């Protein structure tokens, strides 16, 4: 086994910088593609990963001595495939012989047609990694390992799990795929909508994991938001007819554009209202807005497009006071059709409060509180407290902040609430 950290260009190396740079570049472009095609040819996930790894390691030496080939991707694919063939030839089993035939007969540029038209192997891989018969943790880990090329150690760090535990999780998932007969394919039309929802869900979970973890101080945690966006870009490119894939990419970009302004110098959470909007990433906002427009033109709305539209309302407001809250309230009503959750309803209440005044919002919040479905969710009392504060009902506000403080899960959130609590004079 080669050291993947070397392949990913994390360590200083005496090799010529050009080869190193070309390998690093090729890694982000080609890793998932090569793994995906080798899995299709061999049906063997471990073999596919290891041979791809070997090909990148070989590239480091070879490209340094012979120069970078004209088509690095083709060079890597051929090298990885030859490795796979070598290894299959050396093993004696019947299954290996069959796999060898499959590798030999596989076309260099895979372009076989699936039921959804021309199918990229990476799309197969994505759907297989996100199969509902795997646990959610396994889906996330497999996606990061096989498609994004993160090492087991990196994935472990990202989810605060020891490397050994993560390795076991990945092995178990791969065994299940093989032994339970999870097909390696883009699902047929009748399964496609629900399975696509599953893939989008995994990517968004990945994004949120990185987004909320940005409050942490562990610099070793890989940038999951960047990986999620990269995979989202890939998925949107591979499924051009699926506006929700484009919608998710737009949503992630619009949210990520705000990341630099989300925490202040002391690492404290800054509310959307108080963020320095000049620190928002305009390039990401523009890309997100353009993607959203393209998605909406297809006139097949879905939860990610609606959430992206909400994020767009914020992104387009130069000042917090410019925000079109009436539009946001309408969008939350729309979102409720797709995601009938009390959290969505709470967000709608906030938008209504901003559009029509705190009184109107408080009515909705109190209905939700009476409903009893959000009793453990700190944002319910926190929202209620904010509305009461705006209405000048300080004592009631303080009681609600206190309640929220007891439920808030992270330090920055608790600090924020504690500050508010002091403001209302408790």
């Amino acid at each position, binding site marked *: 086994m080669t050291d993947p950290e070397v392949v990913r260009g994390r360590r200083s190396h005496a090799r010529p910088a050009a080869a190193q740079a070309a390998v690093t570049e090729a890694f982000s472009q080609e890793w998932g593609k090569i793994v995906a095609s080798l899995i299709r040819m061999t049906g063997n996930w471990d073999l596919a990963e290891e041979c791809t790894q070997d090909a990148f390691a070989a590239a480091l030496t070879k490209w340094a001595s012979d120069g970078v080939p004209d088509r690095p991707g083709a060079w890597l694919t051929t090298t990885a495939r030859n490795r796979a063939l070598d290894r299959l030839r050396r093993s004696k089993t019947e299954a290996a012989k069959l796999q060898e035939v499959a590798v030999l007969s596989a076309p260099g540029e895979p372009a076989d047609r699936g039921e959804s038209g021309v199918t990229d192997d990476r799309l197969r891989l994505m759907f297989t990694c996100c*199969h509902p*018969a795997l646990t959610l943790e396994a889906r996330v880990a497999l996606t990061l390992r096989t498609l994004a090329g993160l090492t087991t150690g990196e994935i472990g760090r990202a989810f605060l799990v020891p490397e050994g535990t993560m390795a076991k999780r990945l092995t178990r998932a791969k065994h299940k795929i093989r*032994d*339970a*007969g*999870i*097909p390696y394919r883009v*699902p047929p039309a009748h*399964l496609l909508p629900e399975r696509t929802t599953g893939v989008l869900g995994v990517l968004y979970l990945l994004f949120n994991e990185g987004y909320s973890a940005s409050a942490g101080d562990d610099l070793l945690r890989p940038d999951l938001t960047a990986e999620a966006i990269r995979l989202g870009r890939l998925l949107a490119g591979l499924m051009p007819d699926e506006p929700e894939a484009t919608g998710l990419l737009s949503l992630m970009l619009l949210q990520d554009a705000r990341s630099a302004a989300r925490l202040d110098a002391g690492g404290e959470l800054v509310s959307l209202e108080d963020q320095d909007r000049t620190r928002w990433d305009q390039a990401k906002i523009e890309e997100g807005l353009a993607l959203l427009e393209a998605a909406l033109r297809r006139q097949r709305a879905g939860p990610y497009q609606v959430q992206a539209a909400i994020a767009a309302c914020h992104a387009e407001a130069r000042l917090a006071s410019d925000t079109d809250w009436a539009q946001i309230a309408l969008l939350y009503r729309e979102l409720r059709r797709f995601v009938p959750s009390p959290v969505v309803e709470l967000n709608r209440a906030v938008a209504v409060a901003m559009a029509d005044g705190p009184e109107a919002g408080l009515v909705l919040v109190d209905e939700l509180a009476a409903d009893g479905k959000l009793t453990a969710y700190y944002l319910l009392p926190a929202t209620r407290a904010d509305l009461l504060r705006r209405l000048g009902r300080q004592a009631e506000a303080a009681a609600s902040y206190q309640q929220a403080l007891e439920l808030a899960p992270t330090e920055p959130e608790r600090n924020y609430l504690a500050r508010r609590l002091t403001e209302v004079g408790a």
Partner: protein
Amino acid sequence: MRYMLLMVGDETEPELGPHTTPDGEPCWMPWAREMQARGVLLVEGSQLQPASTATTVRNAGDEVLVADGPFAETKEQILGYDVIECTDLDEAIYAASRHPVALNGGVVEVRPVLASV
């Protein structure tokens, strides 16, 4: 691939036990027809007698321990099983989802059969 579908549920629920459809045929008959039409091979299968008829057997070396009742005392019991042959897990999941036990609130565990060497 070959899978065993293990039907699990509360056996006191009448819809989960043996019953007939409004057309007077056994409750599993429409399922069997649908599976046949899809090319899912029904290798074998049956509903089971209630868990009260179960006997649990252990071999403790010099002694065979026999006990009345199923291996686990739970509210849900094994109601029956089917062994099917189909292309992949997606097809097996579909077969399970259409089974009368699943349609009537029970659970179907899908287990690949260990391939014979």
